[in-house]
Protein backbone atom coordinates (compact mmCIF):
# COMPACT_ATOMS: atom_id res chain seq x y z
CA UNK A 1 0.00 0.00 0.00
CA UNK A 2 1.26 3.41 -0.82
CA UNK A 3 -0.62 5.07 1.99
CA UNK A 4 0.40 5.09 5.64
CA UNK A 5 -2.94 5.99 7.18
CA UNK A 6 -6.42 4.86 6.27
CA UNK A 7 -8.43 8.02 6.76
CA UNK A 8 -10.82 8.04 3.85
CA UNK A 9 -12.04 5.53 1.31
CA UNK A 10 -11.34 8.22 -1.28
CA UNK A 11 -7.60 7.86 -0.56
CA UNK A 12 -7.60 4.27 -1.76
CA UNK A 13 -6.48 3.67 -5.31
CA UNK A 14 -8.00 0.81 -7.22
CA UNK A 15 -4.79 -1.20 -6.74
CA UNK A 16 -4.73 -0.59 -2.99
CA UNK A 17 -8.39 -1.47 -2.61
CA UNK A 18 -7.96 -4.69 -4.57
CA UNK A 19 -4.85 -5.54 -2.55
CA UNK A 20 -6.94 -5.24 0.62
CA UNK A 21 -9.71 -7.44 -0.80
CA UNK A 22 -7.26 -10.09 -2.07
CA UNK A 23 -5.39 -10.13 1.21
CA UNK A 24 -8.67 -10.37 3.10
CA UNK A 25 -9.57 -13.44 1.03
CA UNK A 26 -6.45 -15.19 2.30
CA UNK A 27 -7.07 -13.98 5.85
CA UNK A 28 -10.60 -15.37 5.68
CA UNK A 29 -9.22 -18.80 4.81
CA UNK A 30 -7.45 -18.71 8.15
CA UNK A 31 -10.69 -18.37 10.09
CA UNK A 32 -11.40 -22.06 9.48
CA UNK A 33 -8.12 -23.22 10.94
CA UNK A 34 -7.44 -24.85 14.23
CA UNK A 35 -5.01 -22.16 15.36
CA UNK A 36 -6.60 -18.85 14.43
CA UNK A 37 -3.47 -16.87 15.01
CA UNK A 38 -0.66 -15.56 12.88
CA UNK A 39 2.65 -14.24 14.20
CA UNK A 40 2.74 -11.43 11.66
CA UNK A 41 2.40 -8.37 13.93
CA UNK A 42 4.11 -9.80 17.00
CA UNK A 43 5.46 -7.01 19.16
CA UNK A 44 3.35 -4.31 17.52
CA UNK A 45 0.87 -2.30 19.55
CA UNK A 46 -2.56 -1.36 18.26
CA UNK A 47 -4.61 1.14 20.25
CA UNK A 48 -8.37 1.22 19.85
CA UNK A 49 -9.33 4.81 20.63
CA UNK A 50 -13.12 5.03 20.78
CA UNK A 51 -14.83 8.32 21.57
CA UNK A 52 -18.16 6.93 20.39
CA UNK A 53 -20.04 3.79 21.21
CA UNK A 54 -19.43 0.82 18.98
CA UNK A 55 -19.96 -2.91 19.14
CA UNK A 56 -19.05 -4.39 15.79
CA UNK A 57 -16.22 -2.15 14.74
CA UNK A 58 -14.33 -2.17 18.02
CA UNK A 59 -14.66 -5.90 18.58
CA UNK A 60 -13.80 -6.55 14.98
CA UNK A 61 -10.64 -4.44 15.08
CA UNK A 62 -9.67 -6.04 18.37
CA UNK A 63 -10.14 -9.56 17.02
CA UNK A 64 -8.25 -8.68 13.85
CA UNK A 65 -5.27 -7.25 15.71
CA UNK A 66 -5.17 -10.17 18.13
CA UNK A 67 -5.30 -12.76 15.35
CA UNK A 68 -2.21 -11.11 13.92
CA UNK A 69 -0.54 -11.31 17.36
CA UNK A 70 -0.43 -7.56 17.93
CA UNK A 71 -0.86 -6.22 21.45
CA UNK A 72 -4.17 -4.41 21.78
CA UNK A 73 -4.94 -1.55 24.11
CA UNK A 74 -8.59 -0.57 24.29
CA UNK A 75 -9.37 2.97 25.16
CA UNK A 76 -12.88 4.28 25.43
CA UNK A 77 -13.67 7.85 26.30
CA UNK A 78 -15.86 6.73 29.16
CA UNK A 79 -13.78 5.96 32.20
CA UNK A 80 -10.66 7.70 30.88
CA UNK A 81 -9.15 11.12 31.41
CA UNK A 82 -11.30 12.39 28.56
CA UNK A 83 -14.11 12.72 31.08
CA UNK A 84 -11.77 14.97 33.06
CA UNK A 85 -11.43 17.18 30.01
CA UNK A 86 -8.29 15.88 28.30
CA UNK A 87 -8.05 16.99 24.69
CA UNK A 88 -7.62 14.68 21.72
CA UNK A 89 -4.12 16.01 21.21
CA UNK A 90 -3.01 15.30 24.75
CA UNK A 91 -4.46 11.83 24.52
CA UNK A 92 -2.61 11.38 21.23
CA UNK A 93 0.67 12.41 22.80
CA UNK A 94 0.10 9.90 25.58
CA UNK A 95 -0.40 7.16 22.99
CA UNK A 96 2.67 8.37 21.15
CA UNK A 97 4.69 8.09 24.35
CA UNK A 98 3.48 4.53 24.79
CA UNK A 99 4.70 3.66 21.34
CA UNK A 100 1.51 2.80 19.52
CA UNK A 101 2.22 1.41 16.06
CA UNK A 102 -1.37 1.94 14.99
CA UNK A 103 -4.25 3.95 16.36
CA UNK A 104 -7.75 2.92 15.41
CA UNK A 105 -9.90 5.93 16.11
CA UNK A 106 -13.62 6.58 16.21
CA UNK A 107 -14.65 10.12 17.01
CA UNK A 108 -17.88 12.11 16.78
CA UNK A 109 -16.09 14.94 14.99
CA UNK A 110 -15.40 14.65 11.27
CA UNK A 111 -11.71 15.06 10.60
CA UNK A 112 -10.49 13.95 14.03
CA UNK A 113 -8.45 11.07 12.51
CA UNK A 114 -6.80 13.53 10.10
CA UNK A 115 -5.69 15.70 13.00
CA UNK A 116 -4.54 12.66 14.92
CA UNK A 117 -2.43 11.50 11.98
CA UNK A 118 -0.38 14.67 12.35
CA UNK A 119 0.34 14.04 16.03
CA UNK A 120 1.38 10.40 16.17
CA UNK A 121 4.10 8.50 14.36
CA UNK A 122 2.11 5.32 13.88
CA UNK A 123 -0.58 4.58 11.33
CA UNK A 124 -4.02 6.02 11.96
CA UNK A 125 -7.07 4.02 10.92
CA UNK A 126 -10.35 5.83 10.75
CA UNK A 127 -13.04 3.69 12.36
CA UNK A 128 -15.72 6.31 11.79
CA UNK A 129 -15.50 10.07 12.22
CA UNK A 130 -18.76 11.92 12.70
CA UNK A 131 -20.77 12.07 9.51
CA UNK A 132 -17.66 11.88 7.36
CA UNK A 133 -16.18 8.44 6.60
CA UNK A 134 -15.89 4.85 7.74
CA UNK A 135 -13.46 3.32 5.23
CA UNK A 136 -13.09 -0.17 6.71
CA UNK A 137 -16.87 -0.59 6.60
CA UNK A 138 -16.79 0.26 2.90
CA UNK A 139 -13.98 -2.23 2.36
CA UNK A 140 -15.85 -5.02 4.12
CA UNK A 141 -18.99 -4.17 2.16
CA UNK A 142 -17.00 -4.33 -1.07
CA UNK A 143 -15.51 -7.63 0.06
CA UNK A 144 -18.98 -9.02 0.82
CA UNK A 145 -20.30 -7.88 -2.55
CA UNK A 146 -17.35 -9.47 -4.32
CA UNK A 147 -17.69 -12.75 -2.45
CA UNK A 148 -21.43 -12.95 -3.28
CA UNK A 149 -21.34 -11.69 -6.87
CA UNK A 150 -17.78 -12.61 -7.84
CA UNK A 151 -17.05 -9.07 -9.01
CA UNK A 152 -17.77 -5.44 -8.31
CA UNK A 153 -17.05 -3.83 -11.64
CA UNK A 154 -20.25 -3.00 -13.49
CA UNK A 155 -22.63 -3.87 -10.64
CA UNK A 156 -25.54 -1.61 -9.81
CA UNK A 157 -25.69 -0.70 -6.13
CA UNK A 158 -28.48 1.23 -4.42
CA UNK A 159 -27.66 2.89 -1.11
CA UNK A 160 -30.95 3.66 0.59
CA UNK A 161 -31.95 5.81 3.51
CA UNK A 162 -30.30 8.31 5.80
CA UNK A 163 -27.45 9.33 3.50
CA UNK A 164 -27.10 12.70 5.19
CA UNK A 165 -25.87 11.32 8.51
CA UNK A 166 -24.15 8.25 7.15
CA UNK A 167 -20.37 7.93 7.04
CA UNK A 168 -20.91 4.42 5.70
CA UNK A 169 -22.71 5.83 2.64
CA UNK A 170 -19.93 8.33 1.92
CA UNK A 171 -17.16 5.78 2.16
CA UNK A 172 -19.10 3.27 0.10
CA UNK A 173 -19.85 5.75 -2.66
CA UNK A 174 -16.15 6.57 -3.06
CA UNK A 175 -14.88 3.01 -2.81
CA UNK A 176 -17.51 1.38 -4.99
CA UNK A 177 -16.98 4.08 -7.59
CA UNK A 178 -13.22 3.43 -7.49
CA UNK A 179 -13.92 -0.26 -8.00
CA UNK A 180 -16.17 0.37 -11.00
CA UNK A 181 -19.66 -0.12 -9.55
CA UNK A 182 -22.54 2.16 -10.41
CA UNK A 183 -24.04 3.66 -7.25
CA UNK A 184 -27.50 5.18 -6.87
CA UNK A 185 -28.40 6.97 -3.66
CA UNK A 186 -32.06 6.71 -2.71
CA UNK A 187 -33.38 8.95 0.06
CA UNK A 188 -35.94 11.56 0.87
CA UNK A 189 -34.65 15.00 -0.15
CA UNK A 190 -34.28 16.00 3.50
CA UNK A 191 -31.83 13.18 4.14
CA UNK A 192 -29.44 13.98 1.31
CA UNK A 193 -26.43 16.18 2.05
CA UNK A 194 -25.82 19.49 0.35
CA UNK A 195 -23.49 18.97 -2.57
CA UNK A 196 -24.52 15.39 -3.22
CA UNK A 197 -24.61 16.20 -6.97
CA UNK A 198 -20.83 16.27 -6.87
CA UNK A 199 -20.55 12.71 -5.57
CA UNK A 200 -19.80 10.00 -8.10
CA UNK A 201 -23.34 8.60 -7.78
CA UNK A 202 -26.85 9.07 -9.10
CA UNK A 203 -29.62 10.31 -6.84
CA UNK A 204 -33.23 9.16 -6.74
CA UNK A 205 -36.16 9.83 -4.43
CA UNK A 206 -38.14 6.81 -5.56
CA UNK A 207 -37.11 3.46 -4.11
CA UNK A 208 -39.60 1.37 -6.09
CA UNK A 209 -38.31 2.74 -9.38
CA UNK A 210 -34.71 1.84 -8.54
CA UNK A 211 -35.09 -1.63 -7.00
CA UNK A 212 -35.88 -3.74 -10.10
CA UNK A 213 -32.54 -2.88 -11.72
CA UNK A 214 -30.08 -3.37 -8.88
CA UNK A 215 -27.61 -6.11 -7.92
CA UNK A 216 -27.07 -4.86 -4.38
CA UNK A 217 -29.32 -2.93 -2.00
CA UNK A 218 -27.59 -1.36 0.95
CA UNK A 219 -29.98 -0.13 3.61
CA UNK A 220 -28.73 2.60 5.95
CA UNK A 221 -29.70 3.03 9.56
CA UNK A 222 -31.90 5.99 10.37
CA UNK A 223 -29.56 7.76 12.78
CA UNK A 224 -31.97 9.16 15.29
CA UNK A 225 -29.18 10.14 17.66
CA UNK A 226 -27.87 12.60 15.08
CA UNK A 227 -31.26 14.02 14.14
CA UNK A 228 -31.87 17.36 15.74
CA UNK A 229 -34.62 18.41 13.31
CA UNK A 230 -37.49 16.42 12.01
CA UNK A 231 -36.38 15.04 8.69
CA UNK A 232 -39.53 13.11 7.92
CA UNK A 233 -43.11 13.26 9.23
CA UNK A 234 -43.15 9.93 11.04
CA UNK A 235 -41.24 6.67 11.23
CA UNK A 236 -44.21 4.91 9.72
CA UNK A 237 -44.26 7.15 6.72
CA UNK A 238 -40.50 6.81 6.26
CA UNK A 239 -40.79 3.07 6.48
CA UNK A 240 -43.57 3.02 3.90
CA UNK A 241 -41.62 5.03 1.35
CA UNK A 242 -38.04 3.96 2.05
CA UNK A 243 -38.17 0.81 4.15
CA UNK A 244 -37.30 -2.57 2.67
CA UNK A 245 -40.13 -5.00 3.40
CA UNK A 246 -41.09 -8.36 1.94
CA UNK A 247 -43.11 -6.81 -0.90
CA UNK A 248 -40.16 -4.75 -2.04
CA UNK A 249 -37.83 -7.74 -1.59
CA UNK A 250 -39.99 -9.63 -4.11
CA UNK A 251 -39.50 -6.78 -6.55
CA UNK A 252 -35.73 -7.23 -6.52
CA UNK A 253 -33.94 -9.26 -9.20
CA UNK A 254 -33.49 -12.81 -7.95
CA UNK A 255 -29.71 -12.53 -7.63
CA UNK A 256 -29.73 -9.24 -5.73
CA UNK A 257 -28.41 -9.14 -2.16
CA UNK A 258 -29.52 -7.02 0.78
CA UNK A 259 -26.91 -5.38 2.98
CA UNK A 260 -27.03 -3.32 6.17
CA UNK A 261 -24.03 -1.99 8.09
CA UNK A 262 -25.76 -2.49 11.44
CA UNK A 263 -27.02 -1.76 13.98
CA UNK A 264 -30.46 -2.18 12.45
CA UNK A 265 -33.71 -0.46 13.32
CA UNK A 266 -35.89 -3.42 12.56
CA UNK A 267 -39.25 -2.26 11.32
CA UNK A 268 -37.97 1.16 10.26
CA UNK A 269 -35.52 0.92 7.36
CA UNK A 270 -35.67 -2.87 7.12
CA UNK A 271 -38.37 -5.31 8.13
CA UNK A 272 -37.39 -8.24 10.36
CA UNK A 273 -38.34 -10.81 7.69
CA UNK A 274 -36.01 -9.17 5.19
CA UNK A 275 -33.19 -8.82 7.69
CA UNK A 276 -33.33 -12.55 8.42
CA UNK A 277 -33.89 -13.69 4.84
CA UNK A 278 -31.22 -15.67 2.96
CA UNK A 279 -30.79 -12.70 0.63
CA UNK A 280 -29.48 -10.62 3.51
CA UNK A 281 -25.70 -10.55 4.09
CA UNK A 282 -25.85 -8.78 7.41
CA UNK A 283 -24.24 -11.48 9.53
CA UNK A 284 -21.75 -12.26 6.77
CA UNK A 285 -20.70 -8.61 6.76
CA UNK A 286 -19.74 -8.83 10.41
CA UNK A 287 -17.67 -11.98 9.84
CA UNK A 288 -15.98 -10.42 6.83
CA UNK A 289 -15.17 -7.36 8.91
CA UNK A 290 -12.52 -9.25 10.84
CA UNK A 291 -10.80 -10.56 7.70
CA UNK A 292 -10.83 -7.16 6.03
CA UNK A 293 -9.45 -5.41 9.10
CA UNK A 294 -6.72 -8.03 9.40
CA UNK A 295 -5.82 -7.27 5.80
CA UNK A 296 -5.73 -3.53 6.43
CA UNK A 297 -3.63 -3.88 9.59
CA UNK A 298 -1.23 -6.22 7.81
CA UNK A 299 -0.83 -3.97 4.79
CA UNK A 300 -0.41 -0.79 6.84
CA UNK A 301 1.73 -2.21 9.64
CA UNK A 302 3.47 -5.16 8.04
CA UNK A 303 5.68 -2.83 6.13
CA UNK A 304 8.88 -1.02 6.82
CA UNK A 305 8.77 1.73 9.38
Amino acid at each position, binding site marked *: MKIKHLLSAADLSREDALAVLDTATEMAAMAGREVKK*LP*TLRGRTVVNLFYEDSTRTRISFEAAAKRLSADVINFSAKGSSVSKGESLKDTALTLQAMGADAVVVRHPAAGAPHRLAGWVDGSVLNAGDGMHEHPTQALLDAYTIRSRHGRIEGLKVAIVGDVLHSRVARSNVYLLHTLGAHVTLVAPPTLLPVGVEAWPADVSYDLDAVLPGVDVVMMLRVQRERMIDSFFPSEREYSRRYGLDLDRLRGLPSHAIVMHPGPMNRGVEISPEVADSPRSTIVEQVANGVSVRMAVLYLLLGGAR
Partner: protein
Amino acid sequence: MARPQVDQAGVRVDRQPSDGGKADDGKVVEGKSVGAGHGKGAGGVDSKNVGGKVIIDGPNLARIVDRMAHQILEKTSGARDTVLLGIPTRGVPLARRLADRIRAFEGVSVPLGALDITLYRDDLRLRGARALGRTELPPAGIDGTRVILVDDVLFSGRTIRAALDAIADLGRPRQVQLAVLIDRGHRELPIRADYVGKNLPTALSENVRVRLVEIDGMDEVRIEAGRSLDGSGKGDR
Protein backbone atom coordinates in the same frame (compact mmCIF):
# COMPACT_ATOMS: atom_id res chain seq x y z
CA MET B 1 11.90 -34.06 -24.29
CA ALA B 2 9.36 -31.38 -23.82
CA ARG B 3 7.54 -31.82 -20.56
CA PRO B 4 3.78 -31.56 -21.00
CA GLN B 5 2.10 -29.11 -18.70
CA VAL B 6 0.51 -30.86 -15.80
CA ASP B 7 -3.16 -30.30 -15.54
CA GLN B 8 -4.43 -32.79 -13.00
CA ALA B 9 -6.90 -31.81 -10.41
CA GLY B 10 -5.43 -30.59 -7.22
CA VAL B 11 -3.82 -27.34 -6.40
CA ARG B 12 -4.01 -24.50 -8.79
CA VAL B 13 -0.77 -23.19 -10.14
CA ASP B 14 -0.77 -20.09 -8.24
CA ARG B 15 0.10 -16.67 -9.42
CA GLN B 16 -0.25 -13.93 -6.93
CA PRO B 17 -4.02 -13.63 -6.55
CA SER B 18 -4.09 -9.98 -7.36
CA ASP B 19 -6.35 -8.38 -9.89
CA GLY B 20 -3.92 -5.54 -9.94
CA GLY B 21 -0.88 -5.06 -12.09
CA LYS B 22 1.58 -6.98 -9.98
CA ALA B 23 2.90 -10.03 -11.68
CA ASP B 24 4.45 -12.99 -10.00
CA ASP B 25 7.32 -11.30 -8.29
CA GLY B 26 5.53 -11.85 -5.01
CA LYS B 27 8.19 -14.08 -3.63
CA VAL B 28 11.48 -12.46 -4.36
CA VAL B 29 13.12 -14.26 -1.56
CA GLU B 30 16.61 -13.98 -0.27
CA GLY B 31 18.10 -12.77 -3.45
CA LYS B 32 17.21 -15.88 -5.35
CA SER B 33 15.16 -14.04 -7.86
CA VAL B 34 15.20 -10.72 -9.59
CA GLY B 35 18.06 -8.41 -8.75
CA ALA B 36 17.70 -4.94 -7.41
CA GLY B 37 15.63 -2.30 -9.03
CA HIS B 38 13.77 -4.24 -11.66
CA GLY B 39 10.31 -3.43 -12.86
CA LYS B 40 7.36 -5.42 -11.69
CA GLY B 41 5.80 -6.55 -14.93
CA ALA B 42 6.73 -10.13 -15.75
CA GLY B 43 7.54 -9.34 -19.34
CA GLY B 44 9.72 -6.43 -18.37
CA VAL B 45 11.71 -8.51 -15.94
CA ASP B 46 12.37 -11.20 -18.47
CA SER B 47 13.50 -8.92 -21.21
CA LYS B 48 15.73 -6.89 -18.93
CA ASN B 49 17.27 -9.87 -17.31
CA VAL B 50 18.76 -11.92 -20.05
CA GLY B 51 22.24 -11.92 -18.52
CA GLY B 52 23.76 -14.70 -16.50
CA LYS B 53 24.55 -18.30 -17.22
CA VAL B 54 22.12 -21.14 -17.77
CA ILE B 55 22.86 -23.87 -15.26
CA ILE B 56 19.96 -26.19 -16.01
CA ASP B 57 17.97 -26.18 -19.23
CA GLY B 58 14.46 -27.51 -19.81
CA PRO B 59 15.19 -31.19 -20.58
CA ASN B 60 17.66 -31.45 -17.70
CA LEU B 61 15.21 -29.84 -15.33
CA ALA B 62 12.71 -32.54 -16.29
CA ARG B 63 15.30 -35.24 -15.62
CA ILE B 64 16.09 -33.74 -12.23
CA VAL B 65 12.41 -33.69 -11.27
CA ASP B 66 12.19 -37.34 -12.38
CA ARG B 67 15.10 -38.25 -10.14
CA MET B 68 13.67 -36.37 -7.17
CA ALA B 69 10.36 -38.17 -7.64
CA HIS B 70 12.20 -41.51 -7.61
CA GLN B 71 14.10 -40.50 -4.47
CA ILE B 72 10.90 -39.53 -2.73
CA LEU B 73 9.36 -42.88 -3.65
CA GLU B 74 12.45 -44.66 -2.38
CA LYS B 75 12.81 -42.81 0.90
CA THR B 76 9.12 -42.92 1.74
CA SER B 77 8.50 -46.55 0.74
CA GLY B 78 6.23 -45.68 -2.15
CA ALA B 79 5.04 -42.28 -0.95
CA ARG B 80 2.52 -43.71 1.50
CA ASP B 81 0.81 -41.20 3.82
CA THR B 82 2.74 -38.48 2.11
CA VAL B 83 1.56 -34.95 1.33
CA LEU B 84 3.41 -32.55 -0.94
CA LEU B 85 3.17 -28.92 0.11
CA GLY B 86 4.51 -26.39 -2.38
CA ILE B 87 5.63 -22.99 -1.19
CA PRO B 88 4.34 -20.25 -3.52
CA THR B 89 5.23 -19.09 -6.01
CA ARG B 90 7.40 -21.67 -7.74
CA GLY B 91 7.25 -24.40 -5.15
CA VAL B 92 3.61 -25.01 -6.08
CA PRO B 93 4.13 -26.06 -9.71
CA LEU B 94 7.20 -28.01 -8.64
CA ALA B 95 5.18 -29.96 -6.10
CA ARG B 96 2.60 -30.62 -8.77
CA ARG B 97 5.25 -31.92 -11.16
CA LEU B 98 6.65 -34.22 -8.48
CA ALA B 99 3.19 -35.58 -7.76
CA ASP B 100 2.63 -36.03 -11.46
CA ARG B 101 5.87 -38.00 -11.90
CA ILE B 102 5.19 -40.11 -8.81
CA ARG B 103 1.81 -41.00 -10.27
CA ALA B 104 3.41 -41.82 -13.61
CA PHE B 105 6.07 -44.07 -12.04
CA GLU B 106 4.05 -45.99 -9.48
CA GLY B 107 0.44 -45.00 -9.93
CA VAL B 108 0.31 -43.46 -6.47
CA SER B 109 -1.77 -40.34 -6.09
CA VAL B 110 -0.05 -38.03 -3.62
CA PRO B 111 -2.22 -35.30 -2.04
CA LEU B 112 -1.04 -31.83 -2.97
CA GLY B 113 -1.24 -28.55 -1.16
CA ALA B 114 0.16 -25.06 -1.09
CA LEU B 115 1.61 -23.28 1.91
CA ASP B 116 2.07 -19.53 1.80
CA ILE B 117 4.53 -18.36 4.42
CA THR B 118 4.39 -14.61 3.90
CA LEU B 119 2.65 -13.97 7.21
CA TYR B 120 5.28 -16.01 9.04
CA ARG B 121 8.33 -14.26 7.60
CA ASP B 122 10.78 -12.72 10.01
CA ASP B 123 11.73 -9.89 7.69
CA LEU B 124 8.36 -8.20 7.20
CA ARG B 125 9.54 -5.18 9.12
CA LEU B 126 12.55 -4.84 6.89
CA ARG B 127 10.89 -5.44 3.58
CA GLY B 128 7.31 -4.50 3.96
CA ALA B 129 3.95 -6.09 3.47
CA ARG B 130 3.56 -8.00 0.28
CA ALA B 131 0.76 -9.72 -1.54
CA LEU B 132 -0.20 -13.05 -0.03
CA GLY B 133 -0.11 -16.36 -1.84
CA ARG B 134 -2.67 -19.05 -1.34
CA THR B 135 -2.58 -21.64 1.39
CA GLU B 136 -4.55 -24.73 0.51
CA LEU B 137 -4.34 -28.03 2.33
CA PRO B 138 -5.52 -31.35 0.95
CA PRO B 139 -9.06 -32.11 2.17
CA ALA B 140 -7.81 -34.81 4.55
CA GLY B 141 -5.47 -32.36 6.24
CA ILE B 142 -1.90 -33.05 7.29
CA ASP B 143 -2.31 -34.61 10.74
CA GLY B 144 -0.30 -37.79 11.05
CA THR B 145 1.07 -37.57 7.51
CA ARG B 146 4.56 -37.16 6.16
CA VAL B 147 4.68 -33.63 4.78
CA ILE B 148 7.23 -32.88 2.11
CA LEU B 149 7.77 -29.15 1.68
CA VAL B 150 8.69 -28.23 -1.87
CA ASP B 151 10.48 -25.03 -2.85
CA ASP B 152 12.58 -23.90 -5.75
CA VAL B 153 15.72 -22.56 -4.06
CA LEU B 154 17.11 -23.24 -0.60
CA PHE B 155 19.27 -20.33 0.51
CA SER B 156 19.33 -18.84 4.01
CA GLY B 157 16.75 -21.34 5.29
CA ARG B 158 14.51 -18.60 6.60
CA THR B 159 11.66 -19.46 4.26
CA ILE B 160 11.71 -23.02 5.55
CA ARG B 161 11.87 -21.83 9.15
CA ALA B 162 8.74 -19.78 8.46
CA ALA B 163 7.13 -22.78 6.75
CA LEU B 164 7.77 -24.97 9.79
CA ASP B 165 6.03 -22.39 11.97
CA ALA B 166 3.13 -22.25 9.55
CA ILE B 167 2.80 -26.04 9.55
CA ALA B 168 2.65 -26.09 13.32
CA ASP B 169 -0.41 -23.85 13.12
CA LEU B 170 -2.10 -26.05 10.55
CA GLY B 171 -1.81 -29.46 12.10
CA ARG B 172 0.57 -32.04 13.41
CA PRO B 173 2.30 -34.08 10.72
CA ARG B 174 4.19 -37.20 11.72
CA GLN B 175 7.25 -36.01 9.87
CA VAL B 176 8.30 -33.01 7.79
CA GLN B 177 10.79 -33.31 4.96
CA LEU B 178 12.13 -30.81 2.49
CA ALA B 179 12.59 -31.06 -1.27
CA VAL B 180 14.30 -28.25 -3.19
CA LEU B 181 15.26 -27.92 -6.80
CA ILE B 182 18.40 -25.90 -6.03
CA ASP B 183 20.47 -25.75 -2.87
CA ARG B 184 22.68 -22.73 -3.23
CA GLY B 185 24.26 -22.81 0.21
CA HIS B 186 24.76 -19.87 2.62
CA ARG B 187 22.46 -21.20 5.30
CA GLU B 188 21.73 -18.89 8.21
CA LEU B 189 19.79 -21.52 10.19
CA PRO B 190 20.34 -25.21 10.96
CA ILE B 191 18.18 -26.46 8.11
CA ARG B 192 18.93 -28.97 5.37
CA ALA B 193 17.01 -30.52 2.53
CA ASP B 194 16.10 -34.22 2.25
CA TYR B 195 15.83 -34.12 -1.53
CA VAL B 196 18.01 -31.82 -3.58
CA GLY B 197 17.72 -31.38 -7.32
CA LYS B 198 21.11 -29.78 -7.66
CA ASN B 199 23.68 -28.41 -5.28
CA LEU B 200 24.81 -25.12 -6.73
CA PRO B 201 27.77 -23.41 -5.09
CA THR B 202 27.24 -19.67 -5.38
CA ALA B 203 28.71 -16.43 -4.20
CA LEU B 204 26.50 -14.43 -1.89
CA SER B 205 26.38 -11.66 -4.44
CA GLU B 206 24.93 -13.89 -7.14
CA ASN B 207 21.27 -14.52 -7.78
CA VAL B 208 19.80 -17.87 -8.67
CA ARG B 209 16.80 -17.56 -10.88
CA VAL B 210 14.42 -20.45 -11.46
CA ARG B 211 11.94 -20.20 -14.30
CA LEU B 212 9.13 -22.69 -14.73
CA VAL B 213 6.83 -23.10 -17.71
CA GLU B 214 3.71 -22.75 -15.57
CA ILE B 215 4.71 -19.30 -14.42
CA ASP B 216 7.44 -17.95 -16.64
CA GLY B 217 6.67 -19.72 -19.91
CA MET B 218 9.96 -21.63 -19.93
CA ASP B 219 11.98 -24.08 -17.86
CA GLU B 220 15.47 -23.05 -16.85
CA VAL B 221 17.74 -22.22 -13.95
CA ARG B 222 20.08 -19.33 -14.38
CA ILE B 223 22.79 -17.85 -12.24
CA GLU B 224 23.15 -14.10 -12.42
CA ALA B 225 25.57 -11.59 -11.03
CA GLY B 226 23.59 -9.81 -8.37
CA ARG B 227 23.91 -6.26 -7.35
CA SER B 228 23.33 -6.46 -3.64
CA LEU B 229 26.48 -7.61 -1.91
CA ASP B 230 24.97 -8.32 1.47
CA GLY B 231 23.08 -11.26 0.06
CA SER B 232 20.05 -10.59 2.15
CA GLY B 233 18.36 -9.20 -0.90
CA LYS B 234 17.31 -6.04 0.82
CA GLY B 235 17.56 -4.23 -2.45
CA ASP B 236 14.93 -6.45 -3.99
CA ARG B 237 11.65 -4.87 -4.93
